């Protein structure tokens, strides 16, 4: 009998972290260690996470492929599956199938270059996977810039790691909040970052994009506004990478949901360059 | 070894009359059949016909819907609105051939503990005689 491609791995929830009131991070370990041994993935790939009884939902793998034995996912509670995933406790079982999709060409294209990460809000997880991947191989890259912004202080994810990056000497972290996002009611005291929208902050960052790689991820409007800024900073369109989050059901290029133009985001994506994007119909 | 089949009855009741009526049955120690599982809602107006359908589909053999008598509604009108819904819903189910003997509607006030106890026992006995609601249970079996 052929293999059932829809059958997930069973994963034990090892850790649950609250990032924001409605964003959580789960650390998952393979219930069957043997499966964990053989499992591998690359930065940028995603998977389908099952909440048994509710269904499957697609998120990227937010942990770095350089760190073995577990995977992490970060998600915002929005629908039926994520509501159930929100309620899991350490020790509970959830399902995971993947990895799916293409990857960031780290070895092929990124090595030896400066990397600039640009992310907004909940879109940090897919970038974070690359960041850690890059940081774990720090000596293979030149400058590393991270520009990350959110609406309010409350909406910043991975606050601990932001602190780590900020403290690290070899990383240039620029964090920003939308105007008004530093109010005490958002849990903020003493904001030490910038104030302003990501594209604006990016523009003023002074980053030189010539010959560098940019990894960009965020809400559609942020992507739209940041792309020209990156080009202005000197990045080539082919060197601006982003990852798309279309609605997906199968992750395998079958269900047709993520189809945009001749791309199946789950197969040809989710990692696409700005050059790729330009060839696609505006339906994402 | 065959276990004796016992019906599952789900009762949707309003908080102010029937739930209180069931409480009264309790404080008065009126015994009734243990097959009923009460789901409390604020008002009969909140009891959606979909609840009944879902209950039957999810394995209930009988459903009771009960609330305040007309003019007694804590919210004045909830039961009147509900009554209209049930009139239509019953007409629909009748035409579809759903066994309406399995769905019992009753007004039962907070003072009618004895009525509530009698209602539950009567419904349970009736459903027990009718047997499991296989027609609906079969719906869940997947063809192919």
């Amino acid at each position: 009998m052929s293999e059932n491609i829809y059958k997930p791995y069973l994963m034990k929830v090892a850790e649950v972290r609250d990032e924001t009131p409605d964003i959580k991070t789960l650390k998952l370990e393979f219930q069957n260690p043997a499966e964990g041994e053989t499992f591998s993935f690359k930065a940028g790939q995603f998977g389908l996470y099952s909440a048994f009884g509710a269904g499957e939902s697609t998120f990227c793998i937010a942990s770095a492929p350089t760190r073995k034995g577990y995977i992490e996912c970060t998600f915002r509670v929005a629908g039926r599956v994520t509501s159930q995933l929100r309620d899991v406790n350490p020790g509970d079982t959830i399902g995971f199938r993947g990895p799916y999709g293409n990857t960031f060409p780290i070895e092929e294209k990124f090595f030896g270059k400066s990397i600039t990460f640009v992310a907004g809000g909940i879109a940090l997880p897919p970038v974070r996977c690359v960041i850690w991947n890059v940081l774990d191989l720090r000596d293979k890259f030149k400058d590393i810039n991270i520009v990350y912004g959110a609406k309010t202080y409350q909406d910043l994810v991975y606050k601990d790691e932001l602190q780590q990056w900020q403290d690290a000497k070899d990383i240039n972290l620029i964090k920003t909040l939308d105007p008004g996002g530093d109010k005490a009611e958002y849990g903020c005291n003493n904001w030490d970052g910038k104030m302003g929208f990501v594209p604006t902050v990016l523009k003023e960052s002074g980053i030189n994009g010539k010959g560098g790689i940019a990894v960009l991820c965020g809400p559609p409007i942020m992507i739209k506004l940041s792309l020209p800024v990156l080009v202005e900073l000197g990045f080539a369109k082919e060197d601006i990478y982003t990852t798309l989050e279309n609605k997906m059901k199968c992750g395998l290029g079958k269900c047709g949901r993520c189809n945009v133009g001749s791309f199946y985001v789950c197969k040809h994506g989710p990692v696409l360059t700005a050059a790729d994007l330009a060839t696609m119909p505006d339906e994402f | 070894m065959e276990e004796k089949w016992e019906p599952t009855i789900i009762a949707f009741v309003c908080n102010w009359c029937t739930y209180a009526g069931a409480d009264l049955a309790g404080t008065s120690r009126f015994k009734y059949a243990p097959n009923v599982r009460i789901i409390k809602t604020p008002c009969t107006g909140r009891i959606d016909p979909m609840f009944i359908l879902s209950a039957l589909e999810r394995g209930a053999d009988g459903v009771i819907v009960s609330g305040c008598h007309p003019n007694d509604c804590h919210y004045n009108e909830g039961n009147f609105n509900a009554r209209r819904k049930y009139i239509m819903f019953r007409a629909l189910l009748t035409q579809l051939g759903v066994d309406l003997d399995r769905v019992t509607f009753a007004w039962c006030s907070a003072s009618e503990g004895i009525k509530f106890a009698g209602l539950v026992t009567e419904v349970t006995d009736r459903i027990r005689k009718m047997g499991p609601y296989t027609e609906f249970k079969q719906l869940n079996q997947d063809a192919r």
Partner: protein
Amino acid sequence: MKEIIEKAKELLSQGTVDLVIGYEQCGDKQCRPLFVQKPEEADKLVFNEFCVHNLATYLTRPEVKQTKRVAIVAKGCDIRAIVNLIIENQSTREHVYIIGMNCPGVVSGKAPNPTKPHTKCQTCKVRTPQMSDVTLGPTPPESIPMDKTITHPDVEELKKKTREEKWAFWREQLSKCIRCYACRQACPMCYCNRCIVDLNTPQWIDTRSNLRGNLDWNIVRAYHLSGRCIDCGECERVCPANIPLMLLNRTLQEEVKEKFDFESGYDLEACPPLTVFEKDDHENFIR
């Protein structure tokens, strides 16, 4: 059908409306909806016995709602849908210019041979349309009087069956449903932008086209239409599985008429019957 064409041209060229929704011929015995935005496109407009579609469905489209004003070619029965849409705040009388068509009746049956008179026409009370802004077409035969209670033979037929027979009948019929939602999309009264079947917290209705899901879906649709269905029969017409959907809708129409003395779509002031009540509503089923 010169008068429709002329009317449409007049309305468009004078700027009274910016869209006319009407019918065009497509095949010998088939018509279909036509959107006319420019006077010169109006020449294709027709009206004949094949104009069975209820165009009121299009009134709740965002792009139609965004027009300044829309004209719609409507038979008396279609106007019932418009009335309900206005009652339910989905349109306004001012926004719709009703080109009412005197209608001797349309035909039913699938292409290419729709020959039978449509069931809805046999009980039509509005062959001469009511509340139209302009009424076109030759005087039709006299309508059935408004106060006449209508029973449908097919409903009566079904009512005669035993409960088990009814169940078997619907099991068979509903097993055919493929959940394409053509019924919903064609229905002028199904205008929700998020249908209950599209909700998953909780998932009241199974989205699979298995028996349970199909039963739930069709029950819910009929129930949501109770007291609102205007008997246009579009759901049944467009059903690729040929399920006699109107049997359910008509059952409920009769029930509403009998129990609440109400027929939908005739009175702009009326409330949908499931949103109002009488203190002495029938309740012999309640203990």
